[in-house]
């Protein structure tokens, strides 16, 4: 009987796995990205612009000898641009087998969320950027918007990035 209970508990815990999310701020809202996709967080450094780059590309940085493209997250999400300040960060992530940087207002913390705590985002989005959101979660009366980094760019756009 006890074994049966343990098996059930393990099965339940597998269904309701705990996921870790790195949270960052953009335009006074809190967003979360899967911690497994985050490599490191950098202070803002000078970003070299790339002529002819897509609108959502801020430029490139040199990360220990590697060239990393930095995405303007505000622009990609359709938010108003903002000035860079002391809290601005570049989050280095890996998505679609590529390493890129995303520019954010600030990085907050790492939070633990059960899968059951994640709700679907309101399904009224008609814009392309609506698909970036994989869910929302309410923590301490604050909404956490979970971003699907793999969908941050389309297949063509990921290819385009490699050719910058």
């Amino acid at each position, binding site marked *: 009987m006890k074994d049966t209970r343990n098996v059930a508990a393990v099965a339940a815990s597998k269904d309701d796995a705990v996921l870790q999310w790195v949270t960052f701020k953009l335009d006074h809202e809190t967003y979360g990205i899967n911690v497994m996709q985050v490599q490191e967080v950098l202070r803002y450094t000078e970003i070299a612009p790339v002529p002819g780059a897509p609108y959502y590309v801020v430029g490139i940085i040199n990360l220990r000898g590697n060239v990393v493209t930095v995405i303007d997250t505000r622009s990609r999400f359709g938010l108003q641009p903002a000035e860079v300040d002391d809290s601005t960060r570049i989050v280095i992530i890996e998505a679609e087998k590529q390493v890129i940087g995303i520019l954010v207002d600030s990085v907050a913390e790492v939070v633990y969320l059960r899968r059951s705590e994640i709700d679907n985002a309101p399904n009224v989005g008609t814009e392309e950027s609506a698909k970036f*959101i994989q869910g929302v979660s309410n923590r301490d009366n604050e909404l956490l918007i979970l971003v699907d980094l793999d969908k941050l760019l389309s297949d063509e756009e990921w290819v385009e990035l490699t050719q910058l």
Partner: protein
Amino acid sequence: MSKSVDETVFDFFALLLQEDDDSNCIVSPQSTINVESNRNVTISQTAAVLLDTAILAENGRSVALHDLEKPVVPKKQLQSKALPIKNEFTTPVSDMSSQVNKQALEKLLAPVLKTKQNDSAPPELEVVSPIIEDIVQFTAKTVSNVQPTIIEADDKQDIKLEPETQVGITPPSVTKDLQEVLDDEFQVLFFKVAGLTLAVPLVSLGGIVKVERINHIFGRPAWFLGVQAHREEQLNIVDTCAWVMPEKYTDKLAQSVDYQYLVLLEGSNWGLTCESLVNAVKINKSQVNWRSQAGKRPWLAGVVKEQMCGILHVQALVEMLNAGLGCQDSMG
């Protein structure tokens, strides 16, 4: 209300008249004259009259008939009651010639019309939001329990002239399902957005919540304000002004609106933003001009004649919102 907002609301209802089925629309020249000649007529009332006219046209009924349905108040009674009435929906006393015309019309129609004797003035609507500022939220049940605030429409009506055929008859319409749910007498809550008054039946009211922290979510339509946490759930917040009159929702208007409450739609997690709650009133089905065709505005069930404002068809509205449709988007 600023002039720009007035104009916006006026223009909005003028636009509403320009539907596909507007070929049947008969706009009473008298209503135009009233707007121009009588500065006391509030714009919201004018807009509602236009909307009412459009709906009457959709119902295939003439405006002349509608005019007959309006209560004709004897001059003496009107004079004695004109001052204390603060009701913005109440038609201001117009010029003498129109009164004479009404009296003449009354004499002419006396043989064919029944006069209905009632006690007093039409239900008075007062902005009660300051009174209920302390109320953070209350459910539809709570609202229905607040009986003392509900004004019995039947107890406070002036002498009415109504054609016999109109009494108790509601034409078959797209709002049939809504009408079946409602009792002959039902309660509605009036609320205001940018000078526009809307009504929602209390049976379709999920509750009222104060606007607090709204989380903006990108990639959503302009009318989608965001989400607000409420009892461990997320409420989807509609920018009512942007949804109802998107073509008039300028940056200036957007800055001027000051949303205070969310009117929750029953059976959904949608909430309509509003600037103030006006009143809860008990009305009769016959006091509403029900729409017979869905047209482009299935969310509009009809017009409350006395208060001259649109009444929402919540079920249709929720369906549209769930589908991510704006006010002018087609359901098909």
